[in-house]
């Protein structure tokens, strides 16, 4: 059983400094703090759990991005992934999900992955496109917003004899995907498949020191995104960014903490929201 996890290196949104230039354009300040996309941590964790629960599972983790993106592979290997693959791009240009997905599908071709996992979306671009697009390019079934995942054996017609290796016996995956109103859709999907997992599917672990030491020594496979025939042009572009308009009054209460608290209580009292 081989699992491919796709993980992205993203700027930490909490520490993102934005300046507003003339005309309302947003200028993003120093992007010094990067981390593994939180949504992808759940995908890595899910793969590592499958590996721990059964023998004969190999977990590859792949990222697409500029050189520093490799950090995300080290972290995933620190969490227990076996190998890291870096599809390298130069510079900081806009990376279209379509180009990223085509690159991943290209890499995965003929590598016989049984399961490809991604997070629900990235924290920076918030698209959630790469998973379904990889599935489309690879001709695989796909489910998104998956909150529960169980590998199931049996049911495939061409499998007649019992296989002693548990992991190679898996032919399908049972998933529950979140839909509106707090409900869940229950599906059984044949492997190989692409599954985009939702946050809360598990509790991602911290990397272990011994794994991190191993990861630091281990070679990371680096390939240029799209290889030699990088003909796929981004079908869309991010032209500019703006600071979002305020939807409400947005009055900032200033002063010391105590002064702010007093003012807030006064406002709530005037509005008859507190006695």
């Amino acid at each position: 059983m081989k699992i491919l996890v796709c993980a992205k290196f993203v700027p930490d949104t909490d520490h993102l400094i934005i300046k507003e230039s003339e005309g309302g354009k947003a200028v993003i300040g120093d992007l010094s703090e990067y981390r593994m996309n939180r949504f992808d941590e759940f995908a890595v964790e899910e793969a590592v759990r499958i590996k721990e629960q059964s023998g004969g599972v190999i977990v590859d983790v792949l990222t697409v991005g500029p050189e520093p993106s490799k950090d995300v592979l080290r972290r995933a290997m620190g969490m227990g992934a076996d190998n890291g693959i870096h599809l390298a791009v130069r510079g900081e240009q806009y990376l279209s999900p379509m180009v990223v997905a085509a690159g991943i599908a290209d890499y995965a071709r003929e590598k016989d992955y049984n399961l490809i996992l991604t997070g629900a979306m990235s924290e920076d671009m918030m698209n959630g496109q790469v998973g379904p697009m990889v599935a489309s390019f690879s001709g695989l079934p796909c489910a998104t917003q998956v909150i529960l995942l169980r590998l199931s054996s049996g049911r495939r017609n061409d499998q007649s004899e019992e296989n002693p290796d548990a992991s190679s016996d898996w032919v399908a995956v049972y998933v529950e995907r979140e839909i509106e109103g707090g409900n869940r859709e229950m599906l059984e999907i044949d492997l190989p498949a692409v599954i985009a997992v939702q946050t809360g599917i598990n509790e991602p672990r911290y990397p272990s020191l011994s794994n991190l030491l191993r990861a630091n020594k281990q070679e990371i496979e680096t390939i240029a995104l799209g290889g030699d025939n990088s003909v796929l042009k981004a079908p869309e572009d991010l032209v500019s960014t703006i600071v979002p308009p305020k939807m409400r009054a947005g009055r900032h209460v200033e002063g010391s903490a105590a002064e702010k608290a007093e003012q807030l209580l006064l406002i709530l009292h005037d509005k008859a929201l507190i006695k």
Partner: protein
Amino acid sequence: MVNKTHTAVIAAHADGRVLSETWDLVAFALQLNGGRPENIEILVLGDNIDRLAEEIAGKSGIDVRAIFCTGLTGYSSEVYLSVLARELEKQADLAYVCAPHNSQGMDYAPALAARFGAACISGVNGIFLEEGTFFFQKDIYGGKIKANMVSHTATTVLTIQSGVFKLDPERQASPGGVVRTDARFAIDRTRFLGVRKGGGDCAGIAEARVVVAAGRGIGELENMEIIHRLAELFPKSAVAGTRIVCDQGWLPYNRQVGVTGMTVAPDLYVACGISGASQHVMGMRGAGFVVAINTDRQAAMFNEADICIVEDITTFIPLLLEIYQQQYNDNAVPQAPGNDTSGG
């Protein structure tokens, strides 16, 4: 680029009802087409969709193609993908495909775009025209920034954030026509096993006059206590949280506000340490008055607030409670040391 003119809207329905996202998509498609319905067609997929198709054509005033998929009871990515790809391929002048940014559209739209080699823009919540080019706006970086996106391909697939584009309730339109067609399909690799019902019990949050909501800024479970204590300040209040807070197990999922949780509209919403990503904000936009407390002056939540306070909730709320005790405590608000049961 060839100037294509046709807009296809993919209706969203579940349990035999038209989902409100469908009307939002109609409003968006009309805006995209300068208010004219001629070049728009709404596609409805499913079994037994006669009544849905008539309802959509009647209310929207736009032509509907009812695609009967016998045996398709609910949503299926496999069926939607294969049937939509086949139906839309017939449309030589297809410029835009508008899908809902919900559990259905987010599931099939990117794959459909990949199949067509079409640009895909997800979570569109704004649109403007400049020198003949449409710019589509979407949230990035947790809603701290909006991006202006353009498409370079002849066909573009868009998923539209719900609750942004609204169909004018006063709009008078003569009903659109309904064309019926049958689609053959095979479900090969995905077996639908049913829907597990959740929700139902919403811990009184929907009825609360005041909702005090916690976000990641809470930091740790121990700090939930101050959120409960703050809520006790208000009559008819309830404690809620963002998805992350529920994922952490700091609150049960029936207290989650947002796209995958509940939608609330209390008189007062107090957002404590909430970054303000659109997935959360969509669930509380209807609130009467919003107070946001966050250490990050640039948190997107402040764009959704009437009153903004840049402070650390873990120190600010205890201080607020203390000052309240001193200045307003005529009716003796009881302190609740450790016997807080409102956590559900």
